[in-house]
């Protein structure tokens, strides 16, 4: 029987009560490999900075660009009184038992600030890693992209390769100021019995751009995430891309919501989901509240197993006549015709299916490191097994 939220919380040990490593050097080879597959470069190559937290302890936090500030969020709260203005403002503390829990017991998180006008080419990486069994990790992150700044953050969330169970709660509040641009790429690489409850709010000011890429291809028990972006300044833009594979046993309830609350704002939500036997609820909600708002929602799902379930729930909500919103949703199995077309060019049936699925999941994602791209390819090939 499914556990209710409170029962779920009681099952786990707070990360603060578990001993953790002090440095990355203490992680073994297998763990390092897993982090790499999650988009993290332990040697920081091609990265402007790095924040790595295992359980509740921050093992790496450095950034070599003066215009970018990267701190453990608990340090940032001590350093800046004004951070209160950004704390629990986009995600209500009382939202649910998970936000309440994090409000009471914080295991840290990251604070990133791109100062006005600072434009960073290489991404900053952050990693939230659960290393011990039955641990509940509760983090709260804040990103502020100040006026006309540009920032790309890659977040890899993972658990120890042999973890039996775990719970990750991540509160994230992202502020994109006037003319700023934030590209946020999140890779989930959990274990089979891990519960994940991110709670994310985003606010975009005039002319600002927020782009989110979400990737989850591995086994996990349950994910429930529903980032909500509010476009509150003229001409602001938000784009959410998700590429998701649900293996047998996974329960994924995913979606994004964009509130277009200022004139000429634009939004796009695109999700590509594949079920290999797991259940996926693919949500998307666009709310048009201002003149000239333009938004599109696309949910495409592919079922590769008899037991798989994909439930697409696209929602469009217009509050005035001068908005242009559309959606497109399609769920089903691969067309036999497509498989046979490729077979006529010499591919076996399995190779043909793999080629089609790979194409299906090939949503253009900016700035992914080569390991991650290779990992996506590999995971896609892996998801053919057991068909």
């Amino acid at each position, binding site marked *: 029987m499914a556990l209710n939220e409170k029962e779920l919380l009681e099952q786990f040990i707070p990360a603060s009560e578990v001993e953790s490593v002090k440095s990355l050097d203490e992680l073994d080879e297998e763990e390092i490999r897993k982090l790499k597959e999650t988009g993290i470069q332990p040697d920081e190559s091609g990265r402007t900075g790095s924040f790595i937290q295992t359980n509740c302890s921050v093992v790496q936090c450095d950034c070599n660009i003066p215009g970018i500030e990267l701190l453990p969020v608990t340090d940032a709260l001590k350093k800046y009184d004004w951070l209160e203005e950004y704390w629990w403002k986009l995600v209500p503390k009382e939202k649910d038992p998970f936000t309440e829990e994090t409000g009471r017991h914080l295991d840290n998180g990251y604070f990133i600030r791109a100062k006005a006008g600072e434009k960073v080419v290489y991404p900053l990486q952050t990693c939230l890693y659960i290393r011990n069994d039955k641990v509940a990790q509760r983090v709260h992150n804040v990103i502020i992209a100040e006026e006309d700044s540009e920032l790309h953050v890659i977040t890899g969330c993972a658990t120890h390769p042999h973890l039996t169970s775990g719970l990750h709660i991540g509160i994230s509040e992202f502020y994109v100021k006037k003319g700023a641009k934030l590209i946020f790429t999140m890779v989930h690489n959990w274990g089979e019995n891990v519960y994940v409850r991110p709670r994310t709010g985003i606010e975009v000011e005039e002319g600002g751009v927020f782009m989110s890429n979400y990737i989850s291809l591995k086994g996990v028990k349950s994910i429930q995430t529903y980032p909500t972006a509010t476009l509150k300044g003229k001409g602001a833009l938000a784009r959410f891309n998700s590429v998701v594979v649900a293996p047998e046993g996974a329960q994924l309830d995913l979606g994004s919501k964009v509130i277009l609350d200022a004139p000429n704002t634009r939004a796009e939500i695109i999700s590509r989901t594949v079920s290999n036997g797991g259940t996926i609820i693919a949500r998307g909600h666009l709310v048009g509240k201002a003149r000239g708002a333009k938004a599109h929602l696309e949910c495409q799902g592919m079922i590769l197993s008899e037991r798989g379930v994909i439930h697409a729930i696209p929602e469009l909500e217009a509050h005035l006549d001068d908005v242009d919103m559309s959606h497109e949703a399609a769920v089903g199995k691969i067309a036999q015709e497509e498989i046979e077309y490729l077979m006529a*060019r010499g591919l076996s049936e399995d190779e043909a299916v793999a080629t089609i699925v790979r194409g299906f999941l090939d949503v253009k994602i900016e700035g992914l490191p080569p390991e991650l791209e290779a990992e996506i390819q590999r995971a896609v090939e892996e998801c053919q097994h057991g068909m």
Partner: protein
Amino acid sequence: MLHIEDLWVEVQGKEVLKGINLHIGKGETHCLFGRNGSGKTTLLMTIMGFSGYKVKHGKITFKGVDITHLPINERAKMGIGISFQRPPTLRGVKLKDLLKICGDGHGTGRKLAVAYGFENFLERDVNLGFSGGEIKKSELLQLLTQNPDLTLLDEPESGVDMENLNVIGDMIRKLLQKDIHRGREKSGLIITHTGFILNYVTADKGHVMLNGQIYCEGNPVEIFQGIQKYGYQECIKCMQCTV
């Protein structure tokens, strides 16, 4: 090259081909005429081995091997290639990827794409937003890369404008080694509705298909002229004569 004996085929429970006999020798190009719905495409799809085309009786032999029940990709590997009339769109699969699949891994597809002025399509999703002519070019490009010994072409001229007919004709001539007159090795079976393609590609034999049966083996140009002049009605009469 290809030998078909008393082939009976069912599509969705309906008998479509009723005792087809056809022999295509090495280096020969055959044309298949016939009304819509006469079973021409069914014959091509059955030779290639597509699901949904159920062989109830008879035998297809290719290069001396019984291929009647071989999977599609085995037939492709043995040297049969097909150009589709309406191929599916493959989202996210780039034409360059597909050409790699067709080819030997030595960049043949890319070279051919450049040669036929199609390099701008290499980065595009296969068939997504392609015009009729572009689809045909893309199909023939795949076939040229694949370099099959027996090419099956389903109405290669349909939806192609006059200007591009030349290019399509060139590509088919190359596929069927029309520049070689002695020792030609490539064979072809072309379905044509309009006969236009005969202005660009010579064929050795023509056949008329009616109601799932093949009649009138003969000179393709003469057959086509006969059809143009008297219609398929005359073929039916002729067929009744021979029965």
